[in-house]
C-alpha cells in the first residue's frame, strides 16, 4: 500500500548517526511500530488484523473441518462438534468462517490498496503538476467516477468467463479509485504552493518524488482514511456483487457466505449464525482498520507523537 512508498527508504537509521539511532530507533518502521504500540486502540486494531492474517494464512490450524464438505446434518445449532453449527447444506459453519478469511482479506486489502495507490498517483499528480495534466487527469477521474459498476462487472465477467477474484478486484479498483483521487486532488491543491514543496522542487527533486515523498507524508492521514474507505467499499461492494449473484459464489468468502445465507433465509429459517458470523467478521475487519487508523494520527504528524517521559538522569 501507499505507506511503503511514502516514507522514504533512503533515510535509514544509519544515515544520521548514533544520536538519531538512540532517539528514534528503527527509522520509518520504528516510527510506525511505536505509533502502533503506543496507542491502545491502534494496538487493538493491529491485533485484530494480525488475527485475521493468521486465519488467512493458516486456516487449517484453527478449523479442522473441510469448509466445503456437505457432510454434516444441515441446519444444526452450535455444539461442541460444530462451534457455530452447520449450514443448511451441512457444512461446518466455523470452518467456513475461518477459511473465508483469506479471500475476504485478499479482496479487501488488495482492492483497497490498489485503488488507493491509483487515487494517490492520479489525484496528487493532477493537483501538483496542474495545467493540462490536471485537466486531463481530472477528465479521466471523472469518467471513472461514473463508470457503472454493475454492467462493467457483467461485461468483464462475460469476457473472462468467470467473475473470479482477480476480476472482482479489478472491477472494484476500476470503479473505486476515482472517488479518493478527487478528494486527494483537492487536498493537494491547497498544498501546491507551500514553500516546502517549492523548496523540494528547487532542490531538484523529480515530480514523482515530490509527490511521493514530500506531499504524501503530509497527507498520510487523509490517505489512510481513503484507504480505509476504499477497503470498506471493496468489502461491502464485493459482498454486494456476490450477494446479487454477480460474483463467484463458488469461492469461499464472507461475501459469498452472506449470499448463501441470504438465499437460504438463514436469519429466519433457523440458522441465524450463518448470516451473522460473516457480517460480524466483515465488521470486525473494518473495526481492525478503523482502530489502526488511530496510529496514523501520529505517523502522519510527528508533532503528535507521544514521548515517553523519562526523567533526566
Amino acid at each position, binding site marked *: 500500500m501507499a505507506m511503503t512508498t511514502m516514507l522514504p527508504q533512503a*533515510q535509514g537509521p544509519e*544515515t*544520521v548517526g548514533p544520536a538519531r539511532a538512540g532517539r528514534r530507533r528503527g527509522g520509518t518502521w520504528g516510527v510506525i511500530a511505536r505509533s502502533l504500540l503506543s496507542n491502545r486502540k491502534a494496538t487493538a486494531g493491529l491485533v485484530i488484523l494480525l488475527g485475521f492474517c493468521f486465519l488467512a494464512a493458516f486456516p487449517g490450524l484453527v478449523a479442522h473441518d473441510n469448509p466445503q464438505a456437505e457432510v454434516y446434518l444441515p441446519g444444526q445449532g452450535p455444539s461442541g462438534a460444530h462451534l457455530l453449527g452447520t449450514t443448511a447444506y451441512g457444512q461446518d459453519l466455523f470452518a467456513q468462517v475461518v477459511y473465508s478469511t483469506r479471500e475476504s482479506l485478499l479482496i479487501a486489502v488488495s482492492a483497497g490498496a490498489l485503488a488507493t495507490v491509483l487515487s494517490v498517483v492520479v489525484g496528487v499528480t493532477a493537483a501538483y503538476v496542474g495545467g493540462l495534466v490536471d485537466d486531463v487527469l481530472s477528465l479521466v477521474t471523472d469518467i471513472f467516477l461514473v463508470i457503472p459498476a454493475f454492467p462493467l462487472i457483467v461485461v468483464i465477467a462475460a469476457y473472462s468467463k468467470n467473475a473470479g477474484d482477480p476480476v472482482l478486484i479489478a472491477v472494484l479498483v476500476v470503479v473505486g479509485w476515482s472517488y479518493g483521487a478527487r478528494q486527494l486532488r483537492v487536498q493537494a491543491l491547497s498544498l501546491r504552493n507551500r514553500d*516546502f514543496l517549492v*523548496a523540494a522542487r528547487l532542490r531538484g527533486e523529480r515530480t514523482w518524488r515530490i509527490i511521493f515523498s*514530500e506531499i504524501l507524508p*503530509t497527507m498520510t492521514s487523509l490517505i489512510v482514511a481513503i484507504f480505509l474507505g476504499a477497503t470498506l467499499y471493496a468489502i461491502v461492494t464485493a459482498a454486494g456483487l456476490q450477494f446479487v449473484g454477480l460474483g463467484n459464489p463458488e469461492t469461499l468468502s464472507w461475501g459469498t457466505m452472506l449470499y448463501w445465507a441470504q438465499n437460504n433465509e438463514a436469519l429466519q429459517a433457523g440458522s441465524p449464525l450463518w448470516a451473522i458470523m460473516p457480517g460480524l467478521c466483515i465488521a470486525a475487519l473494518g473495526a481492525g482498520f478503523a482502530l489502526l487508523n488511530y496510529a496514523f494520527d501520529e505517523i502522519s504528524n*510527528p*508533532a503528535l507523537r507521544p514521548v515517553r517521559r523519562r526523567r533526566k538522569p
Partner: protein
Amino acid sequence: MSGADGAVPATSGPLLATRGLTRHFRIGGLRGHTLHAVDGLDLTIAEREIVALVGESGSGKSTVARLLAMVYRPTSGEIVFRGQSVSSFKRRRDLLGYRSQVPMVFQDPFSSLNPAHTIGYHMERGLKLHRPELDREGRRSEAERVLQLAGLVPPSAVLAKYPFELSGGQRQRVGFAQALSFKPKLVLADEPVSMLDVSIRIGLLNVMTSLRDDQHVSLLYITHDIASARYVSDRVLVMYAGHLVEHGPTDEVLHQPLHPYTRLLLSAVPDPRAELKVTSSDLGEPPRVVGPGEGCRFRWRCPLAQDVCGRVTPRLQEATPGHAAACHVTVPGPAAGAAPAAQGARLPGDA
C-alpha cells in the same frame, strides 16, 4: 543595457545577469488587478561577489529571488546564467545543474521545511541530488559539517529533529546549511539571518565572506539589515516598488546615496549605540504596485518630486562608474532632459 553592464569587471562576463526581468501577479476576484511585483529589472552578479539586495518590504525582493531560482516564470525578460539563458534549460540535467549551482534560502523558515520529515531527510535529499560523488557516510559527515558551519550543534542531534522541534532561528540556519551543502556557485539568500541573534548572525556572515573568498561563491543577499549588508557585500542593489532604483559598490551607495529612497532608507538605519533621532514618522504612502502606471513609484513620498516624475518612469543612469540610480532629479538622464547620462550628477545630500 546601460548602467548594469558597466558595473561588471570587463575581465569576465557576469555569473548571472537579468534583462528586463518582470513579474506581474493577478490578484483579487473577478475584476482582477495586476500587481507589478517586479518591473524591468536589470541586474548582474559577478563571480565571487556578494550582492546585497535591500529595499522596502513588499518591493519585490523575494520575487526577484524566486524568479532567479526559477520558482516563478518571468512575465517577461530574461535571466542569463554563465552566458546561457536559463529558459533554455529544459533537460533535467541542465536544470539540476543550475539548481545545484544556484540554490535558494527561503525567507520563511517556518513553511519551507517539510513538517513530515526530519532535518536529516532534508539534508540527505539535497546531498543525494547534488553531491552524487558522496557515499552514505560522506553525505552524513557533509551534512554534519554544514550544520556545524551554520552553528547548529550538535549536528547529529539536529539531524534527527523534526522542523517543529526547532526554533525559528534554528530552522533558518537549516535552510542556509542546505544551500551550502550543494557546493553552490551562487546562493540566493532571502533574508537568511533575520531571525538570528547578532552573535550567530556574525558567524554566518563570516561564513559567507569566507565562502566568497575561499570558494569563490557568489551570493545574492537579501536583507533589511543594512549594517550586515555592508559587512559582507561588495555591491548593493536597492529596490523600491518593483523597480531597481539604485545600485553600486556598497560603500559608495551607503556613503553617497543617489536615490531619495536610498537616502530615506539610510537615514532610518539605527545605531544601537546612539540615541534615536526622532525624525518625522514617515510611513508615507505604501508603495503602489497594483496597476501603477507610468512615473516614478516613489514620487508620492519623495521630497524632491517634480512634474516629470509623474509622467516618465526614470531609468537607471550611471552617476559614477558602477554606481547608478533611477531618478529624474538626482541623476537626470536622457529621458528627463537632454543631459548626458551620469555626467556631473549633483548629489543634493552631499551639500
